[in-house]
């Protein structure tokens, strides 16, 4: 696919890296010379230096032939104009990143008026991810495949059935469930019988949907749903989070040290308590009784402050702590500091866009973490190379693993001798590099 990305910052370059790994033709438009050079050096994509709002530049860049145009600069208005212009020039699908709640709240209206296919906000997506994690502790993502017969769940392990000499083969998984991917400190691997699962690991399970709650019981300690959530930082993420939690009926307290921002928040969030103080000070946390609240979430734009405040909150007595980190390298180490969960805004947005890309070729898909883990579903074409072949005959590319076959209403968790038939739905784990090759096996 021919994909143009406006903005080569954190979000843009991350997205470009993921798309380039999947062999798409990627062009980045960026006005800052240093960023252009950085991208040019690090990624196998082409770069154009200039403003993404310039119609001349977009025309010259060949946006008219783009299958997808994504505008992810730091400025909402630039993104809106760039995306609307690209659409006008003939780009097939356009996406704009916006962070201002004004645009997000009436996104459908804006989408219709401006002709933009999707308005996406990394901050709102991040807040949504945090809300989901608060609602269902330990659960990072769920995705249904095969019309709801099969479910993939990525969860954080809080109770490991292995250890003390017991390995995975001693654990009895419910029938029809496969343990697919194990991610520890950012390193993804496929676990085998002798593997040991540790607390804090991220594990992805795929299997029959009705068995998944059973899995959850084995690998997760039961924790009560947090009713009271403390949020540090009343910025865009903090606001969205408070807004969503308020909507769910949770008690919310928001810290922000800017009195003007606090006043705005107090107007916009009628049910939340707004406190104007610095949550990185021990005394603030103590006086606001952080130990009596169920969860503490640090959401400022400053990674170091988020991490330190979370550690401090834990120290003072917070039950569970979560934080937002913008630098993805930090996301894997926060577990070591006793922080329960970290969310990366750029990954939230990139994974959402990647999903849009995959939707054109796959019947269902999900992208986890920083894009290293992807689960896709293919409906097997009757003339595809894979038809009538057994899994052991089928030469799957390295980095791809078939984890479920759905035939009619039955789910098969496949082994070597199982055969693939036309019109089966096949659910696979794939690495970005293996994505294209795998696709060829199941399509014509």
């Amino acid at each position, binding site marked *: 696919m021919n994909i143009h990305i406006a903005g080569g910052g954190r979000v843009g370059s991350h997205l470009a890296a993921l798309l*380039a790994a999947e*062999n798409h*033709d990627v062009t980045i438009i960026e006005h800052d*010379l240093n960023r252009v050079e950085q991208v040019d*050096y690090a990624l*196998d994509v*082409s770069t154009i230096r200039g403003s993404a709002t310039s119609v001349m530049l977009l025309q010259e860049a060949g946006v008219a032939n783009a299958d997808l145009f994504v505008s992810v600069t730091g400025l909402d208005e630039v993104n809106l104009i760039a995306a609307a212009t690209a659409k006008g020039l003939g780009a097939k699908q356009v996406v704009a990143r916006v962070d201002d709640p004004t645009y997000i709240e009436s996104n459908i209206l804006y989408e219709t008026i401006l002709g933009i296919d999707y308005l996406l906000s990394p901050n709102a997506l991040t807040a949504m991810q945090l809300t989901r994690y608060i609602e269902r502790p330990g659960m990072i993502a769920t995705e249904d495949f095969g019309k709801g017969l099969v479910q993939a769940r990525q969860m954080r392990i809080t109770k490991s059935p292995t250890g003390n000499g017991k390995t995975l083969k001693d654990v009895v998984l419910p029938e029809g469930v496969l343990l697919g991917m194990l991610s520890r400190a950012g390193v993804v691997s496929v676990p085998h019988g002798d593997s040991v699962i540790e607390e804090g690991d991220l594990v992805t399970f795929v299997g029959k949907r009705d068995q998944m709650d059973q899995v959850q019981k084995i690998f997760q300690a039961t924790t009560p749903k947090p009713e009271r959530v403390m949020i540090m930082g009343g910025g865009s993420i903090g606001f969205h989070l408070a807004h969503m939690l308020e909507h769910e009926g949770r008690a919310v307290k928001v810290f922000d040290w800017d009195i003007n921002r606090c006043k705005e928040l107090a107007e916009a969030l009628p049910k939340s308590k707004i406190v104007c103080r610095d949550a990185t000070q021990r005394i603030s946390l103590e006086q606001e009784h952080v130990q009596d609240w169920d969860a503490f979430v640090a959401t400022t734009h400053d990674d170091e402050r988020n991490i330190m405040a979370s550690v401090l909150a834990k120290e003072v007595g917070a039950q569970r702590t979560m934080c937002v980190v913008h630098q993805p390298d930090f996301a894997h180490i926060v577990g070591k500091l006793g922080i329960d969960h970290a969310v990366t805004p750029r990954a939230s947005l990139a994974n959402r866009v990647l999903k849009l890309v995959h939707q054109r070729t796959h019947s269902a898909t999900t992208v986890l973490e920083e894009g290293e883990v992807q689960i896709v579903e293919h409906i097997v074409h009757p003339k595809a190379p894979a038809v009538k072949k057994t899994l052991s005959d089928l030469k799957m590319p390295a980095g791809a693993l078939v984890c479920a076959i759905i035939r009619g209403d039955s789910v098969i968790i496949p082994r070597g001798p199982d055969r693939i038939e036309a019109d089966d739905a096949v659910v696979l784990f794939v690495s970005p*590099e293996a994505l294209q090759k795998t696709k060829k096996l199941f399509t014509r």
Partner: protein
Amino acid sequence: MNYALLSKYLGFFAGAMGLLFLPSIGWAMWFGEWDVIMGLLLASGASLAIGGILYILGRNADSVLYQREALGMVASAWFLAVSLGALPYICTGSLGVVDAIFESSSGITTTGGSVLNDYDALPKSVMFWRMFTHWLGGMGIVVLFVAVLPYLGAGGKQLFRSESTGPDPHGLRPRIRESATLLYRIYFGLTIVQTIALMATREMPFFDALCHTFSTLGTGGFSTKAESIEFYDSIVVETILIFFMIVASINFSLYFAMIKGNLKSLFRDTECRVFIGVLVAAVLLVTANLALPHARGDLAHYREFTGESIEQVHYTWPHAFRTAAFQVTSMITTTGYATDDYDTWPHFSRMLIVWLMFIGGCAGSTAGGMKIIRVIILLKMVYHRVESTFRPKRVRALRVGEHVIDENVQQMVGAFFVMNIAWIVTGAFVMSLLGMPLISGVSATVACLQNIGPGLELVGPHQNFSVVPDLGKLYLAFSMIVGRLEMFTITVLLVPSFWRVGR
């Protein structure tokens, strides 16, 4: 430095070289040269074996190719290619080791200077390899590697840039592997067209036409004949060669733009226009210089060195134009074909030839030299500095055509120029220590460093490099690689900290 990864990729590379000997083996069978087939098979087998060993040594390497590894990879790939490329000469007993290395380096770097004295004694299959190296080296052996090997990702981009010519090389397509493939497709297309054109003249059989096509498009300069293009003495052949030498010296991305329907891109490109302008001006100047009797220079210097007496050649205007057009094109495109001994020309024309050697063709082509674009940037940089001495407050951007050249590129061009001079000075000293006379030594260095081929006097177009002492041949072979990779890639190898692990 990630030596394991280097070893793994070089293993692939050496194996690929082994396969590239196969066409020569085919020709050996065609011509019935059964006595050299064993030698060629040995060369091929040796390359494959070396490749296998290197690959096994590095098989467990993790595959992230950083800038440092990319530079190390390109440099060592070229040294390896030159060494392996010498095997066909050595294994068939055609040349000694030093001569073989010189000939191999001269071929792959598309220099075209030769040590070959007896052209008829060289088996045709080995001759084919000799010409084929021009074709491979012209577009670049590592670019070929990038085109063939999948999953190099951004690392492939580093490789591509370390080998491509010009100050700011970038791909034609978003993905570098596609760019490399596309360049080779254009190159391949040109090869077919030129071979057919040369055969249509009926002056050349298929073998000669193909060989000269390799040599022209790589802007190399080897010929299958000792007399070079003078052998054919045909205006049609010369015209075809002039045309394709120019084609090979223009930025290949312009052809891509033309294929895409932008037919005017060739005429809009500043570098291309300047290139053609310089070429035409030089041809006219040399024509006039040759044809006007009073402008003829003194030839005494030449007799002093060779001891022979040279008869005065009188050029008519048409003859002068024909000679000048071919010879000037041959020199500015850094090909190095000869239809005439330009060393017998008047001083002014000889001088002009030397300067044309420096300038070279356009960026992104197969030509050597400094490249027109760098000369333009350098001159503009100097002009801006001069202007700033009397108009210090003036702020201006350096433009070439519509493109603004940013400071980073400007500095690289400046550094390139200084490095170029430094390598020439070093080479000149080495040559003089080995006993080469001044003009011969300097011109040999320049001709090798700028990948042209023939120089002046002892290494002039009617002489060859066999007079250079063995050490000198090896040094020149080395400087050809320095020049082909545009100084930086090899110079960086001389920085000790480049090699240390983890610094």
